């Protein structure tokens, strides 16, 4: 029943060797990137955050089939929860292991808040309501500086605490066994651990009874109801779980950046995350990861290559790199959807939808 083909995770020594190799690569990666520039470690960290967000949105969109265009709001809720409870803004400095669960729970409540009034909506109608929800949250963040200053408005919140465990801070450089690990490198490992945990939770969810119920409501809500599935609760659960993952990612984002403002939680970001899910392969956990990694890195790689390529070809910069970067990015998306409409690595069910209808014989 599972959409994500996890059979390759079982047995076969060659496969295990591959997994071990990949694990080793992931462990060494930040140090290799740091030799090019710490900026690339930061880019990687943001990419992992987007993988977390995509996996969260995949629960709502991919598993349960509920189109959500306001997903970034939960990221914002998590980020602001962290920022308000661990910065000089309110003078509160709670430890991260208390705030992250609070942020996740708050995002979960917001998820239910969005889910409850939209239970009877589907497709385009749901998309419009969720879009509005995302905007409402952003506008609140922007304007809750008066009459009581809660969010500090468009100026955002700065000097946010990094993650600390006792005297161990994730922001400072640290030398261990002759290797110097910068702040971003330490966050990288933390993110990697969180990512692995989230992936495992996602795989388990998909293979669970809840996962099967999500498949059923995605495929046909009336039939799902006839199967004895409590469609209301199962849909709310999808919203709540997706939102919680977004909230956790938001908390980590706030800690890494040290500064957040409503500008980080705009509609374009929601669309970006949705693109990652769709491009990678809706409903397939590994496809979604691939989509998020690609869409996070490609614009960054273009940022650094567009200018040199132009200088070599034409001797000067003809088109502003910022402009051409997004142009190429858009073109890549269009081509993708033209030639691989089900995504790069689609789930079994999605593949079926786009496969030519055959095997239909006489009645």
């Amino acid at each position, binding site marked *: *029943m599972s959409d994500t083909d996890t059979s390759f995770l079982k047995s076969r020594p060659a496969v295990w060797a591959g997994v071990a190799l990949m694990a080793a690569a992931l462990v060494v990666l930040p140090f290799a990137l740091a030799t090019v520039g710490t900026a690339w470690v930061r880019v990687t960290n943001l990419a992992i955050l987007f993988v977390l967000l995509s996996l969260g949105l995949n629960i709502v969109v991919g598993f349960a089939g509920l189109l959500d265009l306001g997903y970034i709001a939960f990221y914002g809720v998590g980020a602001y929860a962290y920022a308000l409870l661990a910065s000089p803004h309110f003078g509160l400095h709670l430890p991260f292991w208390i705030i992250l669960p609070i942020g996740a729970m708050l995002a979960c409540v917001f998820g239910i808040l969005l889910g409850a009034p939209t239970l009877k909506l589907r497709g385009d109608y749901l998309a419009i309501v969720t879009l509005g929800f995302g905007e409402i949250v952003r506008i609140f963040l922007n304007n809750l500086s008066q009459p009581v200053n809660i969010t500090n408005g468009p100026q955002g919140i700065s000097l946010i605490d990094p993650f600390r465990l006792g005297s161990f801070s994730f922001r400072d450089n640290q030398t261990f066994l002759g290797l110097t690990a910068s702040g971003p490198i330490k966050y990288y490992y933390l993110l990697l651990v969180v990512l692995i945990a989230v992936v495992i939770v996602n795989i388990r969810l998909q293979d669970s009874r809840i996962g099967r*119920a999500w498949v*059923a409501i995605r*495929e046909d809500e009336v039939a799902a*109801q*006839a199967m*004895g599935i409590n469609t209301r609760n199962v849909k709310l659960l999808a919203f709540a779980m997706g939102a919680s993952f977004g909230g956790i990612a938001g908390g980590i984002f706030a800690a890494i950046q040290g500064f957040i403002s409503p500008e980080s939680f705009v509609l374009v970001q929601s669309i970006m995350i949705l693109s990652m899910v769709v491009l990678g392969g809706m409903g397939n956990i590994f496809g979604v990861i691939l989509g998020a990694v690609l869409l996070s890195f490609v614009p960054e790689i273009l940022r650094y290559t567009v200018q040199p390529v132009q200088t070599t070809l034409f001797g000067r910069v003809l088109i502003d790199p910022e402009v051409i970067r997004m142009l190429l990015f858009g073109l890549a998306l269009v081509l993708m959807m033209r030639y691989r409409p089900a995504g790069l690595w689609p789930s079994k069910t999605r593949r079926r939808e786009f496969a030519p209808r055959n*095997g239909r014989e*006489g*009645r």
Partner: protein
Amino acid sequence: MSLLSVRSLRVTYGGIEAVRGIDLDVAEGELVALIGANGAGKTTTLKALSGMVRPAGGRVTYKGIDVTGMASHHLIRQGIALVPEGRGVFARLTVEENLAMGAYTRNDPPGVSADLDRVFELFPRLSERRAQVAGTLSGGEQQMLAIGRAMMSRPRLMLLDEPSMGLAPLMVQKIFEVIQSISAQGVTILLVEQNALLALEAANRGYVMESGAITMEDAASALLESPQVREAYLGQ
């Protein structure tokens, strides 16, 4: 005592009364047909009985318990299964995955796999196509799948909505044979049909519904003989 007993059931859609206070009884093991023209309120009645819509009034008693307005996910655990109108199979899932969904509420894997064998025995066609995607099945095969899927919840009462809809005559014949054999296995069936002749030939008793009200009630054979039924529904 009847397994299902309905008293003055009313269902409204935004002020329009689709079902206007009907009485209906189904005894354990019976096959009861509810016939009537398009828009008479038959499907709405089934939807209310299966918890898909909330009745506006009246009382539904099942196994002696008041189940009026109970949600479908509770009713199915009580043994009431609905085969929805237009079949409603999960088009992108395989035959086997569809049948597994039918057993969603059950927690006894050995019993479920025994029932799966039973369904495949009843529908050899489905067994041949167990790995095929349901959307690529023919209409008749999809209807078989919908019935088989309902069987997977091991129902005591099966509510069948228009099983003959849109099917070739030969296939309709076959579906009705299956319905009768399910009935013979002891499952109580309430069958809603526009095809009055077939429904009454298969059923023990029948109800005739017209504009939201029950106008006739009798043994199926008696209804088949009745001049009003013959004129209105059998075209004779």
